């Protein structure tokens, strides 16, 4: 609570596009602008990462400053006056996008990121038809041998987010900048396979890539971003309770993502949460009840037959030996509601407290 009180005591007043806004010390221009719904474009910024200031899209004008300043990294001061959308600023932003498109492959029709691509969005918003300096698509080659992470260096805009998320958030550092200037690409140390440089396959680099340079290999060509339905739920694996967004198309799970700024995981996921859901679409899923036939084989049947069998046997054994002849295991993978009704069933219907689950395992 101390944090809050301190912030209240030291509230700053900032003017953004003519509107007075209250802000806390330490907040950036970007944060304050967003708090009142003023969007400032960014490519190299991710709320999970420290400000970097490389893409130059978030430049804004601050009264009294020598030139445009990056909103992502500029801390607000009391009485600061900010303009986020002047002609000069829009021209500079358009310039940056033009430069980026001047060497971008423009293979959007087959790019995984299409529809979920910042560069695409901003090129549209800033009405960049084509670069005035011609089109010189990059011609890099890179390894692409990881089972889950697809790489395309020619779509890379060198925002460094993958480098920083792996180093700063994951504490690993698989990615780095290789070469200099225009020849810079993102690569692993010595161009080794990702698996050999400590990669834990979390796909965090994919999650932060604002374009299609890094994408999920196994869901390629499955469904476009706009074709999928998105449902926010909780990851069924460990007990951390990460919020995941499940993308589904027709009756299949296509991919999972997480939303920055949401949930206990704040957009982060691990290898299982990002690449571990093939079971959902597995042909081996049980789709009908099974009962053991006279040969001792488990055979598909109807719910009525199966439940009849359960009812008869439960009733018989309860009548013969009472509730204490039953043991029931609940599940650490089922919902609260399901575990509640199962223990209620055990105690109130079967009549026993022989109820446990694998909490200790």
């Amino acid at each position, binding site marked *: 609570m101390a944090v809050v009180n301190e912030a209240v005591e030291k509230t700053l007043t900032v003017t953004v596009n003519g509107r007075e806004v209250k802000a806390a010390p330490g907040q950036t221009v970007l944060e304050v602008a967003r708090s009142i719904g003023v969007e400032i474009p960014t490519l190299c910024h991710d709320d999970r990462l420290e400000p970097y200031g490389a893409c130059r899209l978030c430049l804004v004008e601050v009264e009294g400053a020598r030139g445009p300043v990056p909103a992502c990294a500029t801390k607000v001061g009391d009485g600061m006056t900010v303009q986020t959308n002047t002609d000069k600023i829009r021209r500079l932003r358009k310039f940056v996008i033009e430069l980026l498109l001047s060497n971008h492959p423009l293979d959007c029709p087959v790019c995984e990121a299409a529809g979920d691509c910042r560069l695409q969005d901003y090129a549209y918003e800033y009405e960049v038809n084509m670069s005035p300096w011609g089109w010189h698509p990059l011609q890099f080659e890179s390894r692409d041998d990881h089972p889950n992470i697809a790489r395309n260096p020619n779509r890379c805009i060198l925002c460094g987010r993958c480098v920083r998320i792996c180093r700063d958030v994951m504490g690993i550092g698989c990615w780095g900048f290789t070469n200099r200037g225009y020849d810079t690409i993102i690569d692993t140390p010595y161009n080794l396979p990702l698996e050999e440089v400590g990669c834990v396959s979390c796909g965090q680099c994919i999650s932060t890539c604002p374009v299609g340079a890094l994408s999920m290999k196994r869901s390629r060509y499955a469904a476009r971003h706009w074709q999928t339905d998105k449902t926010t739920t909780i990851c069924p694996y460990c007990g951390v309770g990460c919020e995941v967004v499940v993308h589904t198309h027709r009756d299949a799970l296509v991919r999972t993502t997480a939303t920055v700024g949401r949930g206990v995981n704040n957009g982060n996921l691990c290898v299982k949460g990002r690449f571990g859901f093939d079971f959902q679409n597995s042909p081996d*899923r049980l789709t009908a009840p099974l009962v053991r036939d006279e040969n001792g084989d*488990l055979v598909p049947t109807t719910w009525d037959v199966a439940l009849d069998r359960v009812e008869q046997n439960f009733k018989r054994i309860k009548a013969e030996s009472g509730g204490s002849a*039953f*043991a029931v295991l609940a599940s*650490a993978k089922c919902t609260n509601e399901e575990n509640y009704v199962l223990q209620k069933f055990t105690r109130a219907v079967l009549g*026993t407290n*022989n109820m446990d689950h694998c909490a200790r*395992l």
Partner: protein
Amino acid sequence: MTNSIKDLHEAQVIFVVGSNTTEAHPVLALEVIKALRGGATLIVADPRRIDLARKAHLHLPLRPGTNVALLKGMMRHVVDMGWQDDDFIAERTENYEAFCESLESMTVEQASDICGVPADDIRRAAELYATADRANILYAMGITQHHTGTNNVLSVANLAMLTGQIGGPGKGVNPLRGQSNVQGACDMGGLPDVFSGYQKVDNPDAIAKMEAAWGVTLADREKGMTVMEMMHAVDTGKIRSMYIMGENPVLSDPDQHHVEDTLGKVEFLVVQDIFLTETAEFADVVLPAASSFEKDGTFTNTERRIQRVRKALEPRGESMPDWRIVQSIANRMGAGWDYRSAEDIMREVAAVTPQYGGVTFSRLENVIPDVEYAQTDVCGLQWPCPTDDHPGTPILHSQQFSRGRGLFSAIEYIEPAELVSPEYPLILTTGRELVHYHTGTMTRQAAGLNALVPEARVEISQQDAARLGIEHGAPVRVTSLRGSIEPVAWVTDRVSPGLVFMAFHYAEAPANRLTGAESLDPIAKIPELKVTAVKVEALS
């Protein structure tokens, strides 16, 4: 957890004991990494050089099963140096004198001899932890899965109370729950001794409350059996029928041969799951359940946060959400239930469960105005949340402990139940790996995960491997008193000589064929999965 996930990085010192956090709780581990970046000090007590041990300022590679000795050594040094928090002890705890006497039985040097950690490192760890303004402990199964698991947990609690490192931001004791809803399954009464909300099944008031709410007379008014006891009771014929919902004891429980034998003996076995698991193979009736993507409901995570699970797809084929199946069976047995939705059930849970009293589905949609989460929108309520207007409880025990005063326990060190012998000269410790999960039912189906780790591996030191003529990646046989399995050898410096490690995810080489079910913790009935004597042989 006494504290929230986002609270972990508030600590100046983080003491991780018996938790391979980056692999078992990868996203939670990011808070530890964040704390490190912010200048926090990390102490890791783990027999293996796990990833966090490599990042730690101090790694205490204790011998498996010697947690009590290590913790007592640390506490002895704290008391010797006068670093205990006298105000906290006086105001918030009791039984301190008896506890102090119990420390007399072990010097730091004696502790060092037992656990194998240099005495100076024990002292250094004690100093770092005790003298920090804010220190958090993280622990997991490395503390609990011992026949002295309860003692281990109590020792951790002793350390936190002794130093006053509990009940505030960045100060707490945080057991990490290993499964998506293991916290909720406990909260909901999926245990032999409690109804939902830890209301004792042998407490007459609780019985009366439940009988009134459920409209029944409860037949059983005593504690029931734990899973280990159930298995023995099947052997004796006491248990005739089992109903297993979404569990796979054939792989998850110790001594697999015994579990298989037992399940074979169950007269009528019903298994409800999304796959035909190794356990379902033994069933008389298998009921197809919907996956967690195909139903609504709630999970409660390791920080006690109740969060909404939402349906994204229709159930496959004829499968149904588990609660619907349970209701169908209950009604066939005359229960007369009429739950139309998971939300209906939560209304009843809230009515009978004090900690969940203020939980409704609509409240779970709201973003919690929580200082700690200022940067992210987090939904879901952290219990205790007794009433509709209660905001939930991010930090437990900030004013007082659940029982009032914190009780110090006098604990003596007991050695592991299974010790190495000439025939079984290596200690096997089990746990999880990053890429797969629990019994592999879900993860072994994922091509992207199998491509990364396709097979069961046993981690073995270079020294042992060389001595035994074992090559990296070559198949080996691992044998204990109870059986043999054949994983591939993973020669690594993560384990020290004398120690081998395996995960229990792999049906083809199930680690739990080796582990024992004989030695249970007397209170928690938890098996000693972390210490098994084995031998390892090269397969030519």
